[in-house]
């Protein structure tokens, strides 16, 4: 059963001379537990597509239906709330909150959800242990390497118990060892806990791990292959 349905999704930017069709009438569906890489050259529309699916960038037309909710019909406050409870984000530049420790960064999202202190503490600990950072709970982001920061970001994305995780070029700023570690963690979480991951990437190592590869070009789906 599809957890995400994308119907005729388009995003058109007003360019200097002519409008730019970043995403052009995309129809796509994602199943629970998929490990999908959305690939394509720069400017192919991957990030715009992911932002529209994640409720971050309003499409010009089309629908994004998650669990029978057309997210772009929600009001601003409800959309933020929907993201909080349903979508996990991993960004290319980690984007951890610098004044918070690793533990606090992960806990933060659960605090926004209004979870109890005990639950927050237990889940944070287990998530950071799961990404191999059980010893770095109290480290601030500037004391962590890029790979470690991205692992905290993955733990943060998982903290809210989302329906799926959107990761925009998560390995772009990482060295090969960190990339390998991160991919292994995400693959394990996907296989063992059936967590749905959707990546945008042009990293061959990510593509290799992905079990479904959606290729985009000029805002359109060029191919959609399952391994």
């Amino acid at each position: 059963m599809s957890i995400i349905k994308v119907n005729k999704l388009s995003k058109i930017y007003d360019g200097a001379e002519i409008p730019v069709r970043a995403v052009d009438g995309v129809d796509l569906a994602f199943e629970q537990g998929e490990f999908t890489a959305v690939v394509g050259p720069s400017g192919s529309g991957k990030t715009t597509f992911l932002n529209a699916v994640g409720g971050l960038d309003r499409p010009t037309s089309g629908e994004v239906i998650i669990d029978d909710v057309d997210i772009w019909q929600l009001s601003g406050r409800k959309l933020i709330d929907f993201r909080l409870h349903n979508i996990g984000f991993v960004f290319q530049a980690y984007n951890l909150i610098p004044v918070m420790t690793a533990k606090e960064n992960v806990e933060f999202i659960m605090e926004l959800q209004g979870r109890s202190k005990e639950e927050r503490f237990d889940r944070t600990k287990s998530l950071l242990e799961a990404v191999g950072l059980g010893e770095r709970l109290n480290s601030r982001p500037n004391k962590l390497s890029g790979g470690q920061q991205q692992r905290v970001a993955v733990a943060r994305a998982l903290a809210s118990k989302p329906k799926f995780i959107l990761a925009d070029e998560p390995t772009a700023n990482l060295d090969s060892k960190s990339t390998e570690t991160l991919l292994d963690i995400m693959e394990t979480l996907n296989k063992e806990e059936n967590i749905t991951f959707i990546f945008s990437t042009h990293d061959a190592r990510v593509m290799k791990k992905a079990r479904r590869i959606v290729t985009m070009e000029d805002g359109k789906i060029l191919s959609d292959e399952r391994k």
Partner: protein
Amino acid sequence: MNIILAWRNLWRNKRRTLITVASVFFGVLLSTIISSMQEGSYSSMVDNVVKFYSGYIQVQNEEYWDNKTLNNSMEPSQVLLDQVTSVKEVTHVTSRLESFALASSHTITKGAMVSGVVPDKENEITQLKKWVVEGSFFSENDQGVLVGSELAKYLKMGVGDTLVLLGSGYHGVSAAGKFPIRGILNFPNPELNKQSVYMDLKVCQEFFSADNLVSSLIVMVKDQYDMPAVFKKLKAKISAPYAVLSWDEMQPELVQLIDSDRAGGQVMIAVLYILIGFGIFSTIMMLVAERTREMGVMVAIGMQKSKLAITMFLETVYIGIIGVLAGFAGSIPIIIYFYNNPISLQGGAAAAMTEMGIEPYMYFTLQPSVFYRQAIIVFAITSVVALYPLFMSAKLKVNQALKA
């Protein structure tokens, strides 16, 4: 979490925060000291003026203030006196009968203001005795008078001479009498020296054929800050045919002088705070500009913009709170020092003040209003400045913020 987050954000750039806090600190320090000095000086002016003659409050016949004639004087009943003295903050009450008469000596005559007073009570309130420069003070039922120095000089009279007073008494009765001069008064105010004649109240009532009548009851309170409350209580208790007047109703020129001077000080303080406001604003603008991406991330992962706005608001308020507390910590010892050691004025300014009957000192006050007003102003400034991050949070576009 908002509180902790805002606090930590504040110290991300320690130097910048400290500079902004320092601007608030100096603003509060200067404003508090200036306000304390201004209000302390006004207080002292009022104190001097009311203690010099008018008292804080007067009770009169309701017609007297607009038409100061003996015919509008009153006979204070025991009930009225009890009503006045029953207010616990009232410290002194005395009676006065005032009118005009011609003061003569041989062939010289001059208009004089005759005040009938209860010597000891009057002295407790106005320290009349201290202005006696020749001769002696008088006592109750004394038939003698005290005369202003310039009037005595004009009439070519001195202590021991007999002053002749001619005038119109109660209901037009002729008033004439001869009074030995007991002492010469020399007030700081030359106008008073030119026209003052003081005598015992009973003697005065007899002279003006105004038995038991007084022009006013002079009421003193513990502290001038008690005056509004006492005034309100007396107003509530005392009704027609009597009227209760406060010092500011009786001294409109002094009120005007204080108001205009206070306005000058407020302009200066306003300029100071506007500069501080822009200092805080520039810091907050930088904070917002530096953190646009971070704000985008927070909203992206599920933080409501209102919560984000609260965090930014708290950061602005923290700057204000730290600055205000530091300002108070700096200003309180300075104000306490000058409160106990008022600045003595010298030269022309001191002479001018002395002439007006005001002690030539710059006084400071420790009134709480001096402090809480600064806190309110800074809170108002930070609240206005905080509108900027509130506005920026509200119009934040997540996808654009993430690219910042």
